[in-house]
């Protein structure tokens, strides 16, 4: 292959003026992690609520939950990101829209909100599947014990459901982490965006993407390891 390898490139000064290419990639990694965690907080809370709504006896609650999930999971994230950033401010009243546009770090906030709402629809589906996978008897037992609906969910259904869906939920978290890379379309300087601009400045494509790949593998392995421990720690003795 006619390619000029140069692994020392990471220690060359980056053209953006502050630090080396390695610093540039690490700052990208930092933005990736921060964005993913903030978005996950929204996704997990909102997703649990929506997922529960979809399993309640109430027709209205069902409809709201279903509408939310259908809206957010049926449009590709790339497009949603674009709509939040470029179209939403135009629909707001002029003054509010201008304020949103002038906000410092606008790409970061937009990315967090967009990713959080998007991932919430996925989390909601997992929560619902988890609750529905439980034997019907559990809900009945809760009622028979004199629990209110809220208590049945809090003490009987949700603790079991979360345990069942822990593996797919970990997948969703990893997805969420990797999906932050889509935010590069609205100018968030996360890891993939940094690797891209590094390769365009230096033309060292393979080095830049190798570094990004390795960094992603490392943070994901940390998450997977943590999830495995969590899975073991919360397992109910006797159940497999």
């Amino acid at each position: 292959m006619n390619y000029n390898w140069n692994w020392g490139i990471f220690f060359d000064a980056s053209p953006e003026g502050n630090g080396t290419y390695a610093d540039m990639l690490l700052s990208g990694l930092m933005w990736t992690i921060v964005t993913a965690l903030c978005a996950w907080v929204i996704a997990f809370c909102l997703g649990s609520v929506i997922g529960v709504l979809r399993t309640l006896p109430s027709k209205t609650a069902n409809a709201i939950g279903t509408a939310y999930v259908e809206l957010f999971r049926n449009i590709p994230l790339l497009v949603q990101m674009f709509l939040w950033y470029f179209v939403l401010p135009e629909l707001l009243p002029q003054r509010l829209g201008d304020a949103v546009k002038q906000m410092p770090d606008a790409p970061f906030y937009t990315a967090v909100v967009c990713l959080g709402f998007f991932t919430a629809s996925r989390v909601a589906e997992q929560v619902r599947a988890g609750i529905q996978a439980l034997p019907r008897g559990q809900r009945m037992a809760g009622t028979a014990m004199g629990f209110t609906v809220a208590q049945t969910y809090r003490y009987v259904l949700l603790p079991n459901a979360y345990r069942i869906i822990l593996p797919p939920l970990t997948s969703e978290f990893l997805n969420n982490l990797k999906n932050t890379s889509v935010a590069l379309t609205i100018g968030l300087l996360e890891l993939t965006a940094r690797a891209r601009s590094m390769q365009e400045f230096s033309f060292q494509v393979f080095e830049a993407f190798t570094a990004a790949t390795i960094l992603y593998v490392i943070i994901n392995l940390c998450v997977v390891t943590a999830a495995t421990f969590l899975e073991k720690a919360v397992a109910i003795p006797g159940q497999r």
Partner: protein
Amino acid sequence: MTQFELARRGVAAALGLTLALAPLSGHAQDLTGTLKKVKDSGAITIGYRDASVPFSYLGADQKPIGYALDICYKIADAVKAELKLDKMEVKLNPVTSATRIPLIANGTIDLECGSTTNNAEREKQVAFTNSHFLTATRFVSKKSANLHTIEDLKGKTVVSTSGTTNIKQINEANTERKLGLTILPAKDHAEAFLMVETGRAAAFVMDDVLLASLVASSKDPGAYEISKEALSKPEPYGIMLRKDDPAFKKVADAATAKLYTSPAGPALYDKWFTQAIPPRGINLNLPMSEEMKKQFANPIASPDPAAY
């Protein structure tokens, strides 16, 4: 190696031997690199860009067209003549800013025809033939914003496309001249321009020729102005080739020099820059600059802007 291949090589070797014995075949033996590859496969592959108007982009029927592509076809003709081939296929392969280097390196494409800036750093990785365009870094803003010089931008938010030489230059200018700019990176030129259109940024810093094509194809071309003041000297665009392949580069250089110095060169320029171009019939209205006239009269392939 498969049996078939062994057999094929045997035939090729036998042919080579016969040819070597024939008096006229001296130089066919010395072929290396791209020329050898083209001779062996009977095909040359050109990499094109999707949306670099008017250098290399998809026309009305979604087939690639453009100024740089026309030049590449001339190079392909020259290669065909050089190798004395009766038939040579010209294949087209789409590339992006991220795939162009690996695809040149792994031999998928032989020429990259777009709007790639030739600079010293990139010459470590690839080679460039004679520059086909010169462009300076300027900025576009809304006329209503009344921004004419770089000083006018003080304290404003500006956007540029991530990973370009332009974002590097505005960063440097920002530090040196204490402009206090907020610099946003955008994924591509179209999104960067949209940030100016929607008021997310006051100005978009980019190669002036790309700005001209964005303004011309916008909904209201009259609403924007491109600054007179430039952030850089005119920088060269070149067609990329594989590095360390002097024989192929010589053919490409000779072909482009011949085109540029003949009357067909300026005519080709006019076709794409001063006349209506497909698919929507926009006209960029960019007559040749003095530097371009000099470059066409005496073509060079230097990465140094001062040389032009």
